[in-house]
């Protein structure tokens, strides 16, 4: 079985099968991260496409500096940030800004829908750690590597994010009661 670095070398030389193998291995986590951050399937798919095309560029991934998945998540994060630099504020989850597909999928579970809205209303720094640790199930160390910040920062941001989410969900319960 070829290593990821070997597959990437082959892909850069024009081997499509190697490129697609890498894509199948890593598109899921990249897509989910982009989806959790943007709240829109379409945007998440565009990010996936851009990330994998960027992977083929000359000075992309360096195996010495970390895992390929970490590199891809980092690239997705940068692309999301630059794409939505002006939109972050407006992503503070009006239900109407959510993708229709998401609303349809979640309409049967109002509570989950509200949670989704609450997550999308988090500041990006908090949303990132929630996406990676709570939604993707990565441990603090992996999240810290992907985000390029200290472990303690991940821990404190996650703690704060959960507190905000709990308060919002509590408020919701108060409203519905």
């Amino acid at each position, binding site marked *: 079985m070829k290593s990821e670095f070997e597959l990437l070398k082959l892909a850069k030389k*024009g081997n*499509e099968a190697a*490129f*697609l193998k890498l*894509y199948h291995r890593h*598109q*899921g986590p990249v*897509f*989910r991260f982009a*989806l*959790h951050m943007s709240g829109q*399937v379409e945007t*998440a*798919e565009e990010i*996936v*496409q851009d990330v*994998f*095309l960027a992977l*083929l560029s000359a000075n992309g991934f360096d195996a010495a500096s970390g895992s390929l998945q970490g590199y891809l998540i980092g690239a997705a994060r940068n692309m999301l940030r630059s794409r939505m630099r002006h939109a972050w504020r407006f992503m503070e989850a009006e239900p109407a800004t959510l993708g229709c*597909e*998401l609303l349809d*999928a*979640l309409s049967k*579970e109002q*509570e*989950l829908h509200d*949670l*989704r809205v609450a*997550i999308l209303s988090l500041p990006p720094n908090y949303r990132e750690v*929630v996406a990676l640790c*709570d*939604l*993707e*199930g990565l441990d603090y160390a992996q999240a810290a590597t992907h985000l390029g910040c200290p472990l303690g920062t991940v821990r404190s941001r996650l703690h704060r994010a*959960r507190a905000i*989410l*709990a308060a919002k*969900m509590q408020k919701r319960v108060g409203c519905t009661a």
Partner: protein
Amino acid sequence: MNEDIDLIDKMRRLASALPREASPRVEQRLSAAFRARHSRKAPIWLYAAAACALLLLGLSFIYKRQSAPPADFVYNASGFVALPYSQSGVPVESLVVIRVAVTPSQLSSMGVAVPAVASSARVKADVLVGQDGVARAVRLVE
């Protein structure tokens, strides 16, 4: 603590309710982009061959320059100067001298040092021509 666990549990449920992967259309678009990118690229051997050809061309030019006789090379003791790039492949068997009147600029282009005269003036020169009709050397008469 229990609130945290409950929240995390809900988030896990939320994550499993959301799409897990990009749709197949992303793969199709990526494949198309990949093929377009690599079909435009000329094979690397083509670049290598072009680079070698340029290198050979450069080297042959340098060699030609070096093998040409220097302009101040004296053809023989009688003051003739070999004409640049006039080396015929035919060995010299007989030579004739032809006297000509040329402008100083024509003479200097043949590699002969010209005394300071008016540029419109003509100076006399002897041209050494081989039996094959190729001019081999030139000499300033005046």
